[in-house]
């Protein structure tokens, strides 16, 4: 297991002294649906980030819930880890659930 899962450098969230912190925005479009990454906003505080996220990403759609997360708190995998982390799954068909029949009427799978 590669051991470089350090938080994304917070320097990346501040491009200049005058630039507000970056926040990642996740929107949920219905009860039970997953929160999905929608994009990012700049903001000074959590409340400010919530408002900007609402105005930029939730004004037109059917969003029912918002998460905002400081970009610096996101832990990301490195591109060089793509092989070890994700490749092995491809040739292990038994790990995939495609042999099950999806019940009619089941949604959101």
């Amino acid at each position, binding site marked *: 297991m590669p051991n470089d899962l350090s938080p994304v450098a917070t320097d990346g969230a501040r491009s200049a002294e005058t630039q507000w912190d970056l926040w990642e925005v996740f929107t949920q479009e219905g009860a039970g649906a997953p929160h999905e990454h929608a994009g990012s906003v700049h*903001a000074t505080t959590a409340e400010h980030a919530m408002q900007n996220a609402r105005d930029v990403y939730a004004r037109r759609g059917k969003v029912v819930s918002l998460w905002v997360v400081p970009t610096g708190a996101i832990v990301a995998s490195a591109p060089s880890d793509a092989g070890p982390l994700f490749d092995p799954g491809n040739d292990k068909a038994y790990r995939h659930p495609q042999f099950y029949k999806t019940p009619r009427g089941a949604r959101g799978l």
Partner: protein
Amino acid sequence: MSRESENGGNDGWVAGARPATATSGVAQNPFFEYLLRLADDRLVLGHRLSEWCGHAPILEEDIALANIALDLIGQASMLLKLAGEVEGKGRNEDALAYFRDAIEFRNAQLVELPNGDFAVTIVRQFLFDAWDVLVLERLTAASNQALAGIAAKALKEATYHLRHTAEWVRMLGDGTAESRARAQRALDDLWPYTAELFLGDAIDAEALASGSGVDVESLRSRWRQTVDQVLEDATLTVPKDGFAPRGGRVGRHTEHLGRMLADMQSLARAHPGAAW
């Protein structure tokens, strides 16, 4: 914004003649007049905010201001449509928005003032929003079902507007020395114009008596609670009451409204009936 020019702009009505209400026939139809007051606050403030589109200090706030502008213009559209029906002379919302002149507008003077810097725009919006939420809360119980429905929709929007502008007042006031100075100057300049929001007259009394109005004078103490709390959080000083211009409700406006309307109405007047 120059305070001197604002004051100068108001000298006209103090010594001035009666407003020319006869042209719009409002005296014969107080509920029509009342709806125009509600609608014009929103139409004029919405248009002022729309002037920020593409100019706000940051992309997120540009979108936020445009959202609020669209909310207000949408409310104005519904209220003017209802006003046109109440008037019964075949005027729709477009006719009322684009083919009335400044003396026929019934908005409070606060909302027609120029945008100034960002602090002026935010403080003006905050002072209005804190009042607007209280007005709309009461109008949701209006005996006129159409008005009650519009108020219920608008109240949700206004509640968010207040949350947004209150947060900005806190950030500006409790921010840098420059943002604090600009916010305090905006507050000092705009404060006198808030008095008009709480002045009721015979039109308001008639709407109230019919079950579709608001006792605006009674809103003042709750408005001050909201405003005082936010200003305290923002480390800003509540200005003293004193000079209190008024007259917008009967068509007496600052010189700024006419210029704004010239811009707002030019397209509709150059191309009547244009659709896009």
